[in-house]
């Protein structure tokens, strides 16, 4: 099926070619004249047809941001590329080319119709991003493995598929296999699948399908679990107390602490450690619960605040709209009065009145806006104060709880030291009954070594606690500042926008009036 155009020179997709195509395919007749006058921007083009042009390489398409439909059939393209920017693409036709692998389609999430008919593809692959895919045409390719079909099960919207002309279509139960594995399919190879075939297929491949379904379900469940866990963690993170609802912190203290681990083999230390851990975890859980509670409180606070602000803004907007509506009514009547008036001095007088009205409207609207700004500022400041207080209180309480942790650690440290020293004494005396691991025994060389080892362990623990505390405090502080900043910024943006809007409207009104003035004078 190699085409005649093989003998022709491959062409490059350059600006001229694209412009020509756009011009040809753009609006026709009167609209076409207009379009020619103005020129068409590539980003306004919704559909583009580039067939039979001997294109070898897809290029220069990045400007067509809003393209919905792209036809590149009957060219000599070998590789799918340069389509990354066309994210709005719904329909892509790449049939009758020389493509060997499916690639470069990962950004086309809106694609619904993909045609790769008559290419050299041997494997269905790399289509994961195309969640909306409805029509897939892969006829006349070199797909030879039936298992490729199973890959297509993930496309829930797929209704039409064509695979004829592939090696697999020669297979005996090609049709039945596809029907069984893609039960939502409606058309296969341009024919409707009748119910009978579907039933037959289902019956034949029931076992394999069931297994597949089972596996898919398992995957789904695992995925959901993972998601749920992630969400939970996310929630804890927003409360800044993640991993504090268990022994995570405690475990991490001992994770890098080799000396501590060694020392735990000392007689009596394991019990001590157990008790220490229990107490520590209880405090951690306390912090965790307190954190969640505080988070809830902060959320309620924030919600009330935004609700109130929203209400205030709405109310203000309503007032503004009313003012404008009143003005418009009056303005329209005075405009028509001016049009009907024939005496020049009268016209001038009326126009003056009119512009006075406009500036009056401007003043009123601006006053409303300024009033709102003042009110909001007050409220925002109040909120800021409250939220900062809340955060401060939270930090304070967490710090006091953390201090308890430290106390525990200190206590533990003392005990441990005591045991260590007594053990050392025993070793020195030589009446140690138990066997100690060798690396632990190595520590009991002299008093300094053992004290250093215990101290190092203690330092690591304290450091971990400090780090966790520091992390919490910095994160909540930064959250707080960011929130407050955002509120301020939003308010400023809102204000700017409103002022701009008012100005624009008033300017428009004024210019309309001016135009009228000129028109009258010209008359």
């Amino acid at each position, binding site marked *: 099926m190699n085409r005649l155009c093989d003998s022709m020179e491959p062409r490059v997709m350059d600006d001229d070619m694209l412009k020509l195509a756009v011009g040809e395919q753009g609006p026709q007749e009167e609209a076409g004249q207009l379009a020619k006058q103005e020129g068409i921007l590539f980003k306004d083009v919704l559909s583009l047809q580039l067939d039979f042009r001997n294109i070898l390489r897809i290029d220069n398409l990045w400007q067509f941001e809003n393209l919905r439909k792209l036809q590149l059939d009957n060219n000599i393209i070998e590789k799918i590329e340069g389509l990354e920017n066309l994210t709005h693409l719904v329909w892509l036709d790449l049939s009758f080319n020389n493509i060997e692998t499916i690639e470069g389609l990962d950004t086309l999430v809106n694609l619904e119709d993909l045609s790769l008919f008559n290419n050299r593809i041997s494997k269905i692959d790399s289509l994961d991003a195309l969640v909306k895919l409805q029509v897939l045409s892969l006829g006349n390719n070199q797909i030879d493995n039936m298992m490729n079909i199973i890959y297509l099960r993930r496309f829930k919207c797929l209704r039409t598929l064509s695979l004829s002309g592939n090696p697999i279509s020669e297979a005996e139960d090609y049709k039945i296999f596809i029907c069984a594995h893609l039960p939502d399919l409606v058309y296969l190879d341009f024919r409707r699948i009748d119910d009978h075939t579907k039933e037959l297929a289902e019956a034949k491949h029931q076992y394999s399908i069931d297994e597949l379904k089972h596996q898919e379900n398992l995957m789904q469940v695992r995925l959901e679990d993972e998601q749920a866990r992630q969400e939970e963690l996310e929630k804890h993170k927003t409360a800044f107390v993640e991993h504090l609802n268990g022994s995570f912190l405690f475990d991490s203290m001992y994770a890098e602490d080799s000396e501590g681990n060694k020392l735990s083999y000392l007689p009596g230390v394991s019990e001590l450690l157990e008790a220490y851990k229990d107490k520590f975890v209880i405090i951690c859980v306390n912090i965790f619960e307190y954190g969640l509670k505080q988070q809830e409180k902060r959320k309620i606070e924030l919600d*009330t605040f935004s609700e109130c602000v929203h209400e205030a803004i709405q109310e203000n*907007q309503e007032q503004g709209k009313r003012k404008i509506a009143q003005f418009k009514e009056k303005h329209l009547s005075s405009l028509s009065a001016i049009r009907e008036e024939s005496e020049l001095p009268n016209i001038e007088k009326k126009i003056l009145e009119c512009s006075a009205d406009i500036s009056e409207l401007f003043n009123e609207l601006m006053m409303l806006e300024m009033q709102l700004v003042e009110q*909001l500022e007050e409220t925002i400041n109040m909120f800021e104060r409250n939220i900062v207080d809340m955060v401060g209180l939270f930090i304070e309480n967490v710090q006091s709880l953390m201090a308890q942790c430290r106390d525990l650690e200190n206590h533990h440290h003392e005990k441990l030291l005591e045991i260590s020293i007594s053990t050392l004494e025993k070793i020195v005396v030589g009446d140690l009954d138990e066997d100690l691991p060798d690396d632990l025994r190595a520590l009991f060389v002299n008093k300094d070594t053992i004290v250093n080892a215990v101290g190092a362990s203690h330092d690591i623990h304290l450091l971990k606690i400090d780090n966790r505390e520091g992390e919490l405090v910095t994160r909540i502080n930064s959250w707080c500042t960011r929130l407050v900043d955002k509120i301020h910024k939003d308010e400023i943006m809102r204000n700017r926008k409103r002022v701009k*809007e*008012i100005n624009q409207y008033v300017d428009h009104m004024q210019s309309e009036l001016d135009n009228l003035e000129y028109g009258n004078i010209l008359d």
Partner: protein
Amino acid sequence: MEVLREKVEEEEEAEREEAAERAEWGRTEKMMRPVEVRKEETTLTQEMLRDLEKKLSEIQIPISAELPAFTKDTIDISKLPVSYKTNTPEEEHLLQVADNFSRQYSHLCPDRVPLFLHPLNECEVPKFVSTTLRPTLMPYPELYNWDSCAQFVSDFLTMVPLPDPLKPPSHLYSSTTVLKYQKGNCFDFSTLLCSMLIGSGYDAYCVNGYGSLDLCHMDLTREVCPLTVKPKETIKREEKVLLKKYTIRPPRDLCSRFEQEQEVKKQQEIRAQEKKQLREEEERLMEAEKAKPDALHGLRVHSWVLVLSGKREVPENFFIDAFTGHSYSTQDERFLGIESLWNHKNYWINMQDCWNCCKDLIFDLGDPVRWEYMLLGTDKSQLSLTEEDDSGINDEDDVENLGKEDEDKSFDMPHSWVEQIEISPEAFETRCPNGKKVIQYKRAKLEKWAPYLNSNGLVSRLTTYEDLECTNILEIKEWYQNREDMLELKHINKTTDLKTDYFKHGHPQALRVHSYKSMQPETDHVIEFYETARVDGLIKREETARTMTEYYQGRPDFLSYRHANFGPRVKKLTLSSAESNPRPIVKITERFFRNPAKPAEEDVAERVFLVAEERIQLRYHCRDDHITASKREFLRHTEVDSKGNKIIMTPDMCISFEVEPMEHTKKLLYQYEAMMHLKREEKLSRHQVWESELEVLEILKLREEEEAAHTLTISIYDTKRNEKSKEYREAMERVMHEEHLRQVETQLDYLAPFLAQLPPGEKLTRWQAVRLKDECLSDFKQRLINKANLIQARFEKETQELQKKQQWYQENQVTLTPEDEDLYLSYCSQAMFRIRILEQRLNRHKELAPLKYLALEEKLYKDPRLGELQKIFA
């Protein structure tokens, strides 16, 4: 023994009564009659009063002359059951008890009017009032509640005033008679109503007392019609807005408090003045409306129904006036006093003072001080405990009473002598006598008809007047039922001449309300629709001579409003009707709801097609965070430039204001396309308007047809009115009848005539049996032959006649007139038909005769009377 005990009981009762009465009298030296009476007595002597009363009764009640007197002469007593004509021993006894009671009562209270205890019934037999009550539960679910019951009684009976307005009537007829003649006085009304109410479980009593003039004469002209009273709008309580933590502070109030106060004061003064004026006005009106003072106020005897609380979830005691069927509070000042009351079990005399109408009465029938009962035992034990510490004397009486109650066997009220009260479904449906009733209210007149009585389905009409004399009609409301066009209510406002028709669900054009002044098209019409029944979601269409406004809801294109202005019709030279010459459209305004799928700046809120000026104005929706909305205006002039080329689009053809200017909308191409689109839309809209106009015409035409035809629908379950089902039923009956006849025929005994020749009661001998069989068969054969001969003879006769006729025709063919020829020809064809039929019959007979013969033989063979013998000797 029995009598003795009764006597004792009576004596004791009398004693007790005396004691009670004395106590009562001792305490309150007052009379039972309302105070007004005594007031009059001070100014008038008894004779004068009587005179006046006579005069008044003659003057004020001309109605009695008009209405046919409801006396015993008109009642056919011959068909009444025995219980109506005689008294049972129990009843006799009861009457004795009642007489005794009455004597004691008149002895103790000589200045009170005699009791209304046992008036005569239609057969001139004295019957005790309680036995005249016949508690009956009606088979109609509509009559289960007191209000519908009372309404029914008031509708069903025609009111006849009492012969003497100052005395209870001498006769009290049974409810069955009253129902039969559909008229009665207040006692008849309340007896019937009370029977029905007790039957359906209410604690109801007949009351003999005194009522106001209006009440006694069923005069509602001073009452506001309940239908005209508008339901009070429930005032929504304003919800208190909870001040949230971050609610913004209101802007500082810069107005002077002092000035405000002054303003408020001024306003209040003005309002007070207005109020005063209003009140004066009202007072004046009230004065005018007030009834003329009634000379017999407080003396007019009336009877109504008292319903006590407790049963059937009645929350508090109330009166029902059986004449009108309205309920009144026991505090109502139209009820001036109670003499006595009774239900089907007992009779109570009111011992309380009625100087303040019935307002101070306490309906605690168990309290013997307030209510003197006639029969012991059936007494209500309603005496509330608070009464215990009333007074020492009473206490003793109570104790005595209680003791006696234990000792004595109580005397039960005999069963009612009245037959079961029955109302036929027809009468129930017809309701009012002759299915028609007129009630005059204050400034209103209500007319009622039975359904299907009026051919246009009218069931009631309320006419409201401006003045008290009912001359200037304000408005008319007509209610309809069972109309095919689902018309429910027609409201005619006479002052504005506006007619409003209300429809139920199911009109072919989904009409809900149609208000108009005339049915002419292109005049003021407001048509409302059931929008769910319409495909286009139209709710309302208003039409005037120059405009048409339509309101929509729930459309996929979010159209909510379309307003079209029309210009004066261009006069065409050719004659054309309104349909082919629609009014030229000057302007179309269309408004749309917000389409959530589109961004606000692309979602058109309003578009105005100024058809005449060739302009199109667009206004877009306002974005949530904006206060201004985008606008666009297109000029559609197609101009030609200096070279004669058509100018397609120039920037000044589209003036637009955009809240947030965007790149692509500035382009001429975009504007051009928008304009093209709008042009198409304009065409569509114009078409829509034109179609709407056509629809209005169609609706008006349909309405006119409906008005003219006013066909009524008849339920398929209504066997009497539904012609189709009636025919079907009759046909069925006929078929059944024929079937029955045929069956009788088949059962004819073929042996009977032959058996009759033999002596009866004897067993047949074999010879006899054989002979019988042969005779029967030969007879049947003879009959078959006779029949064949008969048919043959007829056939031959017909053929001969035909031949004769043909011969005659052949001879006179030339001289025949065309009429004669026609006659001949028709005769021929008929004769041929007859001959053919006879021929067929003959053939058929020939075929069937042997079969029939065989069948008879078979039958005879199997006949038990002959078969036995044949079998034995065969």
